[in-house]
């Protein structure tokens, strides 16, 4: 199975995993290991000056796992750009998972802000992976603006609803000139498999693993689901039909 390549960088795994909301950093590390991922997302936040806290980076083997800083909780292009610049300096890579959020309740993206921030950051040399809605036209505009991949949501962040608009994801994949990563909305392994069967080049998830009763077991389930979905996509599924087609020969049936 071929590797995932984004902006010339090769990833063995097509599963990108978050680092938030795990029961403990030790469980997070074990879940990352079980998922087989080689890219994880991280958030950029103020250092707690008043007390010493453990560093997240103590639990991520950055020799094996690539860090993808996000701009989560940014509601304007300006804030997202500022956060991306800080993430670049903290992480020493020019990659960013770009989020410009338009609504607190749904965490749906603000398309205008997202496109504006993409243009600015691409110009500054960033490898921009925008979190976008599942709109093929928006995905095309982002790719035209220089995004290295597009990351349409499967469902609202943390909702676990699964892929709400499979047909749009399929169209996005068919039309896109850059890798398509389904980002957000996955609830369980079958959702990840569906995303991959639709042709997605990868899946990004956090809550589905971190929030599972056994995050490490779910991480392994997701690894297998992403691989199974990818294989099924490459294998080429049979067409859907309304009526039965017998699998056993109709000749030689006894009593006829």
């Amino acid at each position, binding site marked *: 199975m071929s590797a995932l390549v984004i902006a010339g960088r090769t990833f063995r795994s097509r599963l990108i995993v978050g680092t938030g909301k795990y029961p403990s950093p030790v469980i997070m590390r074990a879940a990352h290991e079980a998922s087989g991922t080689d890219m994880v997302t991280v958030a950029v936040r103020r250092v707690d000056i008043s007390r010493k806290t453990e560093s*997240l980076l103590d639990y991520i083997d950055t020799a094996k796992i690539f860090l993808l800083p996000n701009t989560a909780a940014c509601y304007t292009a300006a804030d997202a750009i500022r956060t991306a610049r*800080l993430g670049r300096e903290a992480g020493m890579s020019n990659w960013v998972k770009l989020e410009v959020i338009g609504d607190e309740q749904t965490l749906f993206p603000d398309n205008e802000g997202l496109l504006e921030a993409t243009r600015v950051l691409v110009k500054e040399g960033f490898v921009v992976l925008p979190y976008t809605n599942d709109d093929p036209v928006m995905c095309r505009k982002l790719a035209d603006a220089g995004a290295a991949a597009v990351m349409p949501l499967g469902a609202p962040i943390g909702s676990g609803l699964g892929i709400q608009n499979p047909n749009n994801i399929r169209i996005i994949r068919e039309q896109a000139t850059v890798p398509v990563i389904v980002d957000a909305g996955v609830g369980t392994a079958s959702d990840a498999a569906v995303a991959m069967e639709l042709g997605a080049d990868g899946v990004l998830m956090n809550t589905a693993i971190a929030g599972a009763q056994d995050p490490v077991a779910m991480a392994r389930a997701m690894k297998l689901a992403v691989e199974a979905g990818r294989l099924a996509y490459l294998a080429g599924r049979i067409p859907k039909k309304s009526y039965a087609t017998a699998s056993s020969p109709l000749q030689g049936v006894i009593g006829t």
Partner: protein
Amino acid sequence: MTIRLNGDPRKISGPLSVSALLQQLEIDARRVAVELNTAVVKKAAYDSSVIKDGDEVEIVNFVGGG
């Protein structure tokens, strides 16, 4: 002098460099990023960038996220 550090007013003796501030706060410079008056300070410029009275400083690091 008083600066605004991560949104809160803080009295420190200065002016001082970004390096000196991080040292005073016991923060590992390798794992953070610093903004001085909304402009990112490159790590190579920590020694030469001077924080003055009234400046706004942001010190960020990576935390768990999706």
